[in-house]
């Protein structure tokens, strides 16, 4: 199965979020079961599209406004949830804070990035 690890960080630790990835994290991301990952800019950079009365409206900012923001997305391959949780534990241990949400992937495609 594939799982997406959604990495959440706090908006007030923004500087840490844009700093280069440290070596320990990079080592985990280089493992064969990590099949893709992206880092995201903070909430302020977000633009949200939504449909309202047949028209698509643009708003500045994230869809869900909170102190935490979605900072990255890591796609991994694991046999089952226990396997995915083991990878998530490893990653969370080397992160400076925030939270990781583990979601099973229905389907997907990653190219370039």
């Amino acid at each position, binding site marked *: *199965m594939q*799982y997406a690890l959604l990495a959440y960080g706090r908006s007030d630790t923004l500087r840490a979020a844009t700093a280069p990835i440290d070596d320990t994290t990079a080592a985990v991301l280089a493992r064969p079961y990590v099949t893709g990952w992206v880092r995201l800019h903070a909430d302020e950079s977000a633009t949200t599209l939504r449909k309202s009365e047949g028209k698509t409206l643009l708003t500045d900012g994230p869809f869900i406004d909170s102190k935490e923001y979605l900072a990255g997305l890591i796609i991994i391959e*694991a*046999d*089952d*949830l*226990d396997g*995915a*949780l083991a990878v998530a534990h490893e990653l969370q241990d080397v992160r400076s804070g925030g939270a990781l949400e*583990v*979601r*099973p992937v229905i389907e997907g495609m990653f190219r370039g990035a």
Partner: protein
Amino acid sequence: MALDAVFRDHWGRVLAVLVGVLGDIELAEEAAAEAFAIAAERWPRDGEPPNPIGWLVTTARNRAIDQIRRRQVLAAKAKLLARDLEVLPEAAMHDSATATIPDERLELIFMCCHPALALDAQVALTLRTLGGLSTEEIALAYLVPFDTMSKRLTRAKHKIRDAGIPFALPPEHQLQERLAAVLAVVYLIFNEGWGGGRIDLAAEAIRLGRALANLMPGESEVLALLALMLLGDARRAARVREGQVVPLDDQDRSLWNERQIAEGRHFLQTAKTREHVGPYVAQAMIAELHLHQPRDWPQIAALYETLVRQTGSPIVEMNRAIAIAEIHGPEAGLALLDALELDHYRYFHSTYAELLRRAGRHDDAQHAYQRALDLAQTDPERRFLRDRLGELNPRD
């Protein structure tokens, strides 16, 4: 669907095998329910087959194949699954008395008590799958509407399927932690059993405890939990008299279930011969010490101290305070209670009140009894507390 006890013992076994084969708990449950319904109709008429579990698994498996074939939308996947099903061990296909069906109930309970599921969902799923209770019975036991319970179960089953919660034993390095979660669910069910609902949850928890003890006879904590439940439940008939809770010292000992006490002591003895004293071993030892007259309070206090170190629980510390009060007097116990933050725990206030009463601080005791009464959840508790209040305040 009401199943008798024998039927319900088969339910967990049959369901576990089907979940293992089908990889889908919902489909497995539907197929098992159909097979049991057929059995309920045929067995009384034609007699029980020589291998009832084999018969049930085979029948359910055939139903599942039919069900999968009917799901045209998932045609491709269904073909794959139906093929997998045909390799189900030969043994399961025949009704022969010698065929052995693997017992995969442990895999099932570890799946149902996976920490990725909400605790109330773990409890409900365990009662449904291992315990064989119907959704309606579980709803009744927990005093929630049928729809709420049904949704809770469905949601949990979907999470198991979609998130890929494994039908497997946890790896060795996680076994103790995951086993603790399983035991916590069983003990939670047992403690709900004291609430006096219409379904005998204490008996259900003991059945689950027995099944676990059979499946993991080498785990001292498993045996100790069963001992703890048996020793507690043995005093059931003596615990309430004329609708009022009876404290241990005032209980009519002739009402205690001696057979169950002997059984509990036997399991405790086996559990104690193993390596270290885990939290359930300590609790079962305390429960056993409470059966003696007079009680060995220093040893009880020492075991509670071990438990406080292991669990860090303020409720355990409260129980230690009760033992300390017996040894060194009520003021010593009160001093320990004052350090605890258990304002929302009803037994904290009744314990506090009792020690205040013994210390002769009647005004404070009244206040604490009143607070306990406000938080009380059952009528026997309320009657007991009102009685105590009345004794303190004879004018009422």
